[in-house]
């Protein structure tokens, strides 16, 4: 333990505090929710949002690694979620007969979702990471669209003869008794709902561990160095493409895991669920939470998912208010005058207290 603390003491207390806060926040929130669930004081609407919230938190943490730490705008995170979701659903469907217990099957499905999304991340990363700036962003957008239209046209099923796959509906035939896993634009139907909040929370903690452990390591420093100054990073021997790829693939894998959990939380899931708007939504969580700030990402994701629900009484106006809140936050946080006033207010108070 002595050795560990000597390693971290030089990292600066701020970073350690941020990390501790993230974990504390997740654990406290989990306990609070469980208590509310046990006492039955959580409405059905909120309890149905618990698993989706953990999914979006995981996807957002992944995206923050890509956008905040690695500094590359990614407009296709929902695409990786989609890959994870449908992979997870298929894996769970295929294993339904051999593994009847839900939790181990869920974990295998999440793992497979993460792996397949990582493979997609790697393949798409090869062209994407050759580009820079807005050109890179548009290719991730294009990729998200491609994934969506592929799943809109994919037919996958399983029967006594094995796994069947086709892009054309009329070519697709299953033996009697066979099970349809993916049905083109209708997506996955009749999925066994095996996701739960506890596994979701564990996944959030795993995501935090992966991202923080990466951030405070040789690879993490390389990723941030490549973001801050490409040329200088190369000059100290950091291979830019490989470094950016690491962030990109890790981000994709986390989105894939999140997607698998999400997919197994509903009996039906349409490919349209993971469109450009979903990618943008996750990006909004990340930017509002603060680039590179994982605790902020968790808070902003939870708040922004709950906000429209809390505003439900305002009916049609809720999304309008959401939009206004979004614009105002950006205008206020980027206004230097307001921010210095805000900070001086705080430091003034601190001095008064001391």
């Amino acid at each position, binding site marked *: 333990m002595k050795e560990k603390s000597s*390693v971290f003491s*030089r990292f*600066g207390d701020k970073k350690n505090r941020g990390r501790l806060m993230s974990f504390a926040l997740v654990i406290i929130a989990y306990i609070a929710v469980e208590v509310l669930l046990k006492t039955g004081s959580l409405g059905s609407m909120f309890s149905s949002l618990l698993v989706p919230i953990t999914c979006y938190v995981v996807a957002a943490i992944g995206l923050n690694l890509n956008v905040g730490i690695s500094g590359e705008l990614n407009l296709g995170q929902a695409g990786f979620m989609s890959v994870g979701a449908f992979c997870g659903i298929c894996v769970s469907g295929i294993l339904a007969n051999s593994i009847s217990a839900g939790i181990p099957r869920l974990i295998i499905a999440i793992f497979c979702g993460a792996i397949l999304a990582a493979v997609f991340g790697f393949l798409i990363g090869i062209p994407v990471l050759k580009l820079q700036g807005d050109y890179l962003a548009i290719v991730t957008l294009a990729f998200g669209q491609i994934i969506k239209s592929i799943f809109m046209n994919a037919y996958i099923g399983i029967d006594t003869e094995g796994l069947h796959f086709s892009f054309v509906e009329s070519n697709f035939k299953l033996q009697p008794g066979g099970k349809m896993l993916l049905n083109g634009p209708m997506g996955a139907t009749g999925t066994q709902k095996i996701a739960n909040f506890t596994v979701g929370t564990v996944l959030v903690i795993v995501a935090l561990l992966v991202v923080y452990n990466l951030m405070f390591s*040789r690879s993490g*420093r390389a990723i941030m160095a490549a973001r*801050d100054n490409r040329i200088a990073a190369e000059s*100290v021997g950091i*291979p830019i493409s490989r470094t950016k790829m690491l962030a990109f693939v890790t981000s994709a894998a986390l989105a894939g895991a999140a997607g698998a959990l999400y997919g197994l939380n509903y009996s039906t899931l349409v490919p349209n669920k993971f469109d450009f708007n979903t990618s943008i939504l996750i990006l909004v969580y990340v930017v509002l939470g603060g680039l590179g700030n994982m605790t902020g990402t968790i808070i902003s994701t939870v708040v922004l998912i709950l906000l429209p629900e809390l505003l439900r009484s305002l009916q049609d106006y809720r999304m309008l208010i959401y939009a206004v809140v979004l614009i105002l936050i950006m205008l206020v946080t980027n206004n230097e005058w307001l921010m210095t006033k805000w900070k001086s207010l705080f430091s003034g108070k601190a001095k008064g207290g001391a």
Partner: protein
Amino acid sequence: MADNTDKNMKAPVLDVQDLGIDFGGLTAVNDLNMQVYDGEIVGLIGPNGAGKTTVFNLLTKVYKPTRGKIYFDGKDTAGKSVVDINKAGIARTFQNIRLFGNLTVLDNVKTGFHNVIPYSPITAILRLPKYFASEKEINEKAMDLLKIMELDKYADYKASNLPYGAQRRLEIARALATNPKLLLLDEPAAGMNPQETAELMDMIRFVRDHFKIAVLLIEHDMKLVMGICERITVLNYGMMLAQGTPEEIQSNPEVIKAYLGD
């Protein structure tokens, strides 16, 4: 030109032969021949626009040469990338400071150990024992470098918040972390006051002796160049104008003409 006969016995660490590069129709560097030997401090001087930084960019493979060869440590460097050349043992600083502005001063130096003390991302994510051992070593060595460059008191500062002179020294510390055989310094004293420059001269000499490396530096501050360089190469219009000891260069009429005009 062959001023040091004893040096001709050894192979040079850097051997540049007939080096040249054209940008479109413009010849930026032409017919450059120069050698740097182990443990030497060599100056590269010349009027503004003479092509000094271009030479650095050629040596570090930012630009591919149009003509000529660069041998480092006896091996041809053709086809190597910027990353390869750093791994081979050439480290540099930049004229327009290029730090990792959002990282701490300490982390800036730690990035330099990327290939010196490597471990895999899996080791990092799983926090295997190798992670702790490597990080401890990186941390100690980085702090040593900060002490040498008198930056240890700034270790936890954000690099972009450092004063100008300290930023230049931090770039040197980061370059040294990559364990180079040859250190390229691009105007290390620019923006420093005479006091700081004098300290920098001591640091450069100390670094050369302590790490047993060769130093090639571009500088406009003649006091620094004449004070610490054992040999000097003068560039003008991308061509080598003169080469020799500080005394020879100072008395060379060609050099005086290039600097003062006709």
